[in-house]
């Protein structure tokens, strides 16, 4: 078993510690800092976020997505014919993202994610997982002014995102997480979600790939998800409790992203609670095929809480393995 995170990590520390990234962006916006100076600070805070995950004991880390405003715009804004539109509420949160507006055929221009991964990899003693927005979710949360079809838009995104994945693999990345949470809210779309995943991963080899969902369960589509051409299925067992029962009814032939620490609430879990949840999942999936992690990205809680939660996660996982904490 390994521990991991599900992508993003809170961007700033709380007072009295300085909110470096927030202050730097404000300064840049006022014209008191150059873009180059801001880029340098983004590098530095990214290194800190990686170090914090490692200090908590996480086995498979990410760069924390500190450079990302949101999953929808960070990569898509560099595709051809995308403009950044209005603020929208993200799923059932009180957090907002900007809608990508699709004004013409979408295509890849230059890699966004591979340089970030290389930077993180250079600055991490643990393997770094890359985060890629899922084509289906991206299409669902965009404003389509060109294709007049969410399905065709999803397939176009899949083609463009595949080039991001190819660039990541060429750079040496071995773990790729695809974020597709919307499918848990719109299970009736499974066929075209699947078509988009198939297109996204067409011809891809050389890295472990996973699709992650959150905020709801995938109970009724879990059997079909296990047929996707992918290595890991990530599920949220906190906000999608029905995943527990669903897990018992399938023969789980892939690796499981086991989201068990609530990344949307400050209430701290106990290591024993974490250990129990892992053991419960291990009745259906062999422990060596489990990635234990938070229920979603940790940006919904303050930075200090995120760190505490990761420490509890790791301590709980070590109890299962019988490793002294």
């Amino acid at each position, binding site marked *: 078993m390994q521990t991991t995170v599900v992508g993003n990590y809170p961007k700033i520390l709380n007072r009295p510690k300085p909110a470096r990234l927030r202050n730097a962006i404000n300064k840049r916006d006022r014209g008191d800092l150059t873009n180059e100076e801001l880029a340098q600070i983004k590098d530095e805070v990214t290194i800190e976020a990686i170090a914090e995950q490692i200090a908590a004991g996480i086995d498979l880390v990410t760069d924390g997505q500190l450079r990302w405003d949101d999953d929808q715009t960070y990569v898509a804004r560099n595709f051809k014919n995308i403009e950044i539109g209005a603020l929208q509420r993200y799923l059932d949160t009180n*957090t907002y993202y900007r809608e990508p507006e699709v004004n013409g055929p979408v295509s890849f221009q230059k890699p966004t994610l591979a340089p970030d991964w290389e930077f993180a990899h250079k600055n991490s003693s643990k393997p770094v997982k890359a985060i890629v927005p899922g084509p289906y979710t991206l299409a669902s949360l965009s404003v389509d002014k060109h294709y007049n079809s969410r399905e065709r838009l999803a397939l176009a995104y899949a083609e463009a995102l595949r080039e991001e994945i190819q660039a990541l693999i060429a750079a040496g990345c071995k773990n790729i997480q695809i974020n597709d949470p919307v499918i848990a809210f719109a299970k009736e779309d499974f066929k075209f979600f699947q078509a988009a995943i198939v297109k996204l991963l067409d011809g891809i080899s050389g890295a472990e790939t996973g699709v992650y969902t959150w905020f709801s369960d995938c109970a009724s589509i879990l059997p079909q998800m296990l047929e996707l051409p992918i290595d890991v299925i990530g599920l949220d067992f906190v906000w999608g409790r029905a995943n527990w029962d669903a897990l018992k009814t399938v023969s789980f032939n892939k690796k499981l992203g086991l989201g068990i620490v609530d990344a949307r609430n400050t209430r701290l879990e106990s290591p024993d609670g974490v250990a129990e949840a892992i053991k419960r999942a291990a009745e259906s999936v062999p422990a060596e095929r489990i990635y234990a992690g938070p229920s979603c990205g940790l940006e919904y809680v303050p930075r200090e809480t995120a760190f505490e939660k990761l420490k509890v996660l790791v301590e709980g996982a070590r109890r299962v393995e019988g490793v002294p904490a």
Partner: protein
Amino acid sequence: MATQTKTKNAAKLDRPLPLTTTAVGSYAKPDYLTKARSEFTQGKIDRAELDKLEKKATEYWIRVQEKVGLDVLVHGEMERGDMVAYFSGEEGGNPIKGMKLGGLVRSYGNRYYHKPIIHDRLEYPGPMTVDMWKYAQGLTDRPVKGMLTGAYTMVEWSFDEAYPTRREAVLDMARIIRSEVQELVKAGCYYIQIDEPAIHTRPEEDFQLAIEAMHATVDGIDAEFHTHICYGPVEKVYTEMVKLPVKQIHLAFKNTDFSYLDLIRENGYPAGKDLGVGVTDIHTRFIENVDEVKDGLRRTLELLPADRLWILPDCGLKTRTVEESEAKLRVMVEAVQAIRREIGA
């Protein structure tokens, strides 16, 4: 001339008006108040000084609304930063017991806020909004609405470390908001707006809970209740939403170019309820023209009579400048006056 047998109650309209004009809640804080709030946080000025400036700004907005000609006023929320945090530990407020402000969480872009935490069982701390309401109502002979945040939104937009289920937290919170409603009524307040912008967060799972919480907040209390429901999938919750036990529901019509009218046309709107119609977009600096607003009003009047319609901006105006807010209110009132003449009201 008949002798007046009863003193006029300033907090209530004498009779229903055709197209009653009002506002949703917040206005922009003048620069001197923004500065004073940050000086207060840094300990540079005391509570009495901040209080004086909050009252000065409140009076400013009362006079603006009178001058523009609104029928029912709001006090402008000069003392509040955020609609949930004000009740949860924001400087200057009287926080609900069991709540505190947590660390910083990002809401979008480079914007962060202190998300409240329910850290213990909730208890009513005594009046939270009554003094400011009394002050504002004392300034004017037009009714001033009482302004509260609903139980479901209070809980949904906070972390919860204390309750086993969201349901228990929401129903406990409803008892607390009810206590505040009772205090407002005791002080003489008649129109009480209970905002629930988070109500459509989980339509299937939680909507009945939100309705139950509103019942627990208002049932049996002699006042007129309004609720403001913000942007979001209103179409998904419409048929349940109209069951909320309030006299008036207001929605952001302008933001969706009056598409909510289709919902009303298809599903009806309950006979006992008034409708609050947002006619100016608060997210844009652009000031609508009078004809545009008149057009929206005419379309709405095809479905509901004038004496069941209240006319307001789409949402609170705190993100707009003082000048933009005044201009938007002016256009709204001018359009209402023209339509009143047109329909002979």
